[in-house]
Each structure stands twice: as structure tokens, then as C-alpha cells.
């Protein structure tokens, strides 16, 4: 669905990602793992189109819709959760923005009041972040540390959503440092270290690899 061809990203003199090739297939959940600063977030942002690569290209199958949840929640703090959802639903071209906002707000257990979203708890802000990502019925979800601040119930809901999307021939790429995420949903694992791709293969193969020992 999405293919990165030797993409690299530099921020000034700092290299965030060495030239890297990676493909995301229909019906899979790909886990990106690696320590802090390995380049996971940069790779996800590049796949999402939120960053432009310094070199290389991103190829996306025609008509594929992508949802991206950055690690730090991305929404307008002065607006309420509902107002954020309606705004992004409109930007995503939803035919019924209010209906979509209502559905996702209740589905993610978001408070239905007028409070600025900046005053929500960390967990609720992350739920809102994920809810916005689901707008526009994406075929591919790119999730950056999505379960880091979720409670167990919401975490399970997220795994269910990821599994459902996989079953519907969609794809999920999640950057994580949470072993539980791998065990519950990952079909494939890509390991990054210092901006370089060390390993890319099925979860079972990863478990037997040296990379698994590194991050155990």
C-alpha cells in the first residue's frame, strides 16, 4: 500500500534516518521498534507525508487513505474534543462531520463537554489524538507510540481496531516500545537503530533474531 524507496531525512547536520526502504502490505500490522532516537517517529512522519524526505521517494497506491497519530497529540488545545473532531472531519471531507465526530467521540470514550482539550487528562488527549486519526476511514493507520498513555481497556480497544483493519485488508504501522503491542497485534517487525533499519521480517522470525535479544 505504501512503499518507502531509500528515503532519508536530515535535520540540518543531524541525520535522523539513513536511506531506508520499507514496504507496507495489505492485511498486516507492522511494528516499528527501536530505542529512543532510533528514527521511528521520523519514518512514520515520512510515510504519512507529514515530513518531506531529504532524499528518496514515498510511493502510495492510488486512492489509499492514511491516518497518522503522532506521538505527541496533535489537536487544538483551545477547542473542545468535539470541536476538534468536527473540524478535522470537515478537513478530511467527511460527508457528515457532526455524525462522524459523535461516533468517534463515543467510541473512544471522550468527554462530551465544552472544556478546552488542553485541559483533558493525558490519556484522554491521546484518545482524542487517535480518534482524529480514524477520521476519513483510513486504509492505513500510522500510529506513533499509540498505547503509551492509554489505560488497559483503551489499549485492548486499539488492538481490536488494528486487528479489524488488518482483517479488512487494511494495514497498521505502529511505532512502539511496548512488548505487549508486539505480542498482541504485530505480524511483522522492523527494527531501527541510530536511523538504520536493522531487521525487517515476520514476528516469529524477529523473536528468533539477534534484534529481539537487543531489545528484550
Amino acid at each position, binding site marked *: 500500500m505504501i512503499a518507502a524507496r531509500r528515503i532519508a531525512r536530515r*535535520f540540518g547536520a543531524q541525520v535522523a534516518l539513513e536511506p531506508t526502504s520499507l514496504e507496507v502490505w495489505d492485511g498486516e500490522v507492522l511494528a516499528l521498534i527501536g530505542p529512543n532516537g532510533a528514527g521511528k517517529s521520523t519514518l512514520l*512522519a515520512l510515510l*504519512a*507525508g*507529514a*515530513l*518531506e524526505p531529504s532524499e528518496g521517494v514515498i510511493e502510495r497506491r492510488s486512492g489509499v487513505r*492514511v491516518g*497518522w497519530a*503522532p506521538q*505527541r*497529540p*496533535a*489537536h*487544538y*488545545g*483551545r*477547542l473542545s474534543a468535539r*470541536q476538534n473532531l468536527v*473540524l*478535522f472531519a*470537515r*478537513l*478530511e471531507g467527511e460527508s457528515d462531520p457532526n455524525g462522524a465526530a459523535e461516533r468517534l467521540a463515543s467510541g473512544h470514550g471522550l468527554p462530551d463537554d465544552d472544556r*478546552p482539550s488542553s485541559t483533558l487528562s493525558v490519556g484522554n488527549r491521546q484518545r482524542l489524538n487517535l480518534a*482524529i486519526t480514524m477520521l476519513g476511514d483510513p486504509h492505513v493507520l500510522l500510529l506513533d507510540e499509540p498505547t503509551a498513555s492509554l489505560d488497559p481497556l483503551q489499549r485492548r480497544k486499539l488492538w481490536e481496531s488494528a486487528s479489524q483493519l488488518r482483517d479488512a485488508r487494511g494495514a497498521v504501522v505502529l511505532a512502539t516500545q511496548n512488548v505487549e503491542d508486539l505480542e498482541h497485534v504485530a505480524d511483522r517487525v522492523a527494527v531501527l537503530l541510530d536511523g538504520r533499519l536493522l531487521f525487517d521480517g515476520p514476528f516469529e522470525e524477529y523473536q528468533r533474531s539477534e534484534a529481539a535479544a537487543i531489545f528484550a
Partner: protein
Amino acid sequence: MRAYLLLRKDLLVLRRSPALVAILVLYPVMIAVLIGLMATYANAKPRVGLVDEDHLPPTIVVAGKRFHVDRTIEEVSRNVDLVHLSPEEADRQLDDGRLVAVIDIPPGFLVTLKGLLHSPHLILRTGQGGITPRVEQQMQALVYNLNLRLQRAFTAADRGYVRLLVEGGRGTVLGRDFDVLGLDGTQRLLDKLPPGPQVNRIRDFVHDARIALGLAQQAVDATAHPIQLEVPPERGRSWALSAQVQAYALALTITFLSLMLAAGAIASERDENVIGRLARGLVSLGQLVWAKIGLAAVVAVLLGSAVALIFAVAIQAGNVTGGEPWQRLPLLVVGLAMAGAAVGAIGALIGGLAREARTASLVAILLVLPVVFLGLVPREIVPPAGWLSDLFPFVHAVRFFAAALFDVSPWRTLVYEAAWLIGIGAVFGFLARLGARRLLA
């Protein structure tokens, strides 16, 4: 459409931030008032030293008229703060800039004045600086006023002499008393003499002299005041409601508001971490810049119109001469939109380059005051300031607003200044689009 959605979002954010809006409105209004007060009253009473080396007494008598020295100086020096100083202290304060000028009353001044044969001299020494010419003018006005008072005394004395010549009696000239027969007394003597050719000639002379001296009394007044300045009761607008002040207040308010808003709004897209979401296909950087320029224009129209309405209400309530040009307000709205957009384009550039709202706001504040002050410097006096000011929307907005509201034939100015505003907006808008790429870095 997507730019419109972002613009609507920004307006909603503003509506949910009343404290921010209040500060953004009140701050430029306060600055406008302070600048107005400064322009009106700063240096209104420059400090001038008075060195009395002649040791003038509290009262002096000149041409038979008594003058209270301190009271007279106080009355004629309303525009300066006149301080009595010793010569040394006056020199010191003039050198270190605490005085803008010193007036010396040299020794022998009073004797010369009382002598009525020569004009005594006052000596004005000034420092160097922007208000020196103004102080010189004020000192000339002070001497003019002193002369005027003395002239009145001299004129009164001259009239007394003429009256003495006509009516006769006892008089004093240069301290000496004497009796004068006068034309009336001469006439009475002539009436007692037997008629004859010589008596008749003297009688004719007395008649002619009486007419001539009657005219001389008026001539004394006329030569003392060849031209008199008449000041009729006040007419026209008060300074606070003048066209220029309204134009400056409007331009200052929207320059501050639009610059701060556009800069802060575009940078906050990155602060809120939303820029990545938008940039991945939802909203292009061009649409983002347009949205912020639109925000600046909309807010400029809303708040500029509110400020204009406040002026209008004050003008109507005060029954000010000329009234409020209501039919011109639509023109003003057009100008507000263009000026707001042009300033917004600069704000969007600042926000894009600064990348975070706090830095963007700081840079906007740092930029807005020099831009405004450049626009206040008279271009006739400092041409480079005028050229530099032309590169920013403030001065064009001022001219547009003043012409839109008050010029009898505004179209030429409006088209010219509108072209400037559009040009400036286009250039800075293009640069803002380029600068917005930094938001993704």
C-alpha cells in the same frame, strides 16, 4: 474551502480566548493614546534657564507704567518652563542637556530699557537637538509678547503726550516735570486777542494741528500694531477627533493586531503539533498562509470598524464640526481588509520563520513599534525614514484611511495606496509561503 475551515477555526479559538482578545485590542489602543499624548505634549514645556545678571527688581516702571517682572515673565512664558539660575549653573545645565536654552539678561538691561533711546538686548543661547528651532520660536514669541506689553505702555505714554499737546496741563518727560499750554489753551488765548491776519494764521495752525494730532493718536496705535492677529472662537474638530488621529489610531490598532495574530496563529499550528496532520494532504502550506492572512484581514475589519464606530459615536455625540462621514465607512472597510491582509502576510512570514508562537509574538512586537514610529517620522525631514516606511503597510494604511474618510476627492489617493497595500501583501505573502516550509522542519 480548507483555508476557510482553518480561518473559521482560528476565529473560534479567538472567541474562546476573551482575555487574549481583550489584550490584543486594548494594548494597541493604549499605545495609540500614548503616542498621541506624546506627540501632543512631549516637550510642550521645554526647560529654559533665566540668568538675571541685571538683578531686576520685583517691579519696574517703564514709560510711566508699572511692571511686575516675575508675573510678567510667567504670563508670557506659558510654553516654556522658565527657571531662574546663576550663570554657572545655567552653563552647566545647558551643557549636560537639562536645559534646552538659556536667556541672559545682561547688566544694564533695565537702565537701557528705561532710557527709551536704545533697545536693550536679551541673549538666547540654545543647545543642539531636534526641538532647538522650536525653542527659538518660543523665545521669539516670548520677546514678542514682552515687546507687545512694553509697546502698550509706550503707546499709552505717547497718547498721553499727544493729549498733553492738545489739552495742555502738567506733564513729565524723562523724569522732568513741566507745564504745557496745549492747543486748547492756545485757542483760548487767541480768542481773547483782537482778530488780525497773524492771529488768523495762528488760529488756522491751531485748527490744523488739532486735526493732525487727532490723527496722530490713531497713527500711534497703527504703527505699534501694523498687523494684528485676531483669534476667533474655536471652530473645527478637536485634535482627538481629527482625521489624522483617527487614521493613525486605526492603522496602529490593526497593524498590531494583524501582525500578532497572523504570526502567532501560524506558529501555533506547529506548537500544537498539528502542522504535520495538516501538511500530509489536508491543507497545503499555501492554504495555511492564506488562512492566516484571511484571519488578519477579518479581525482588522471587525476591530477596525469597531474603533471607527467609537470615533463616529464620539463625533456625533459631541456634535463635532463636519460630523461623521457615514457614507465613507464602506471605503474604510475595504482599506481595513487590505491593510489587515498586507500586515497579516508579514505576520505569516514572521510566524513561519520563528516556528513557535512565543518567539513569533516577541518578534512581532519588536517589529511593530519601529514600523509605526517610522511612519510617524515626517518624510520631509528624514527622507530615508519615509522610504523605509513605504516598504511596510502602516503608512499606506494611514493615508488610505485619512483619504477614505475625509478627502473631498479621495480616489486618486485610494487607488495609489491600495496598489501599495496589495503589492506589499503579495510580496510578503509569497515570502510567507516560502517561509512556511520551516514549520515542517
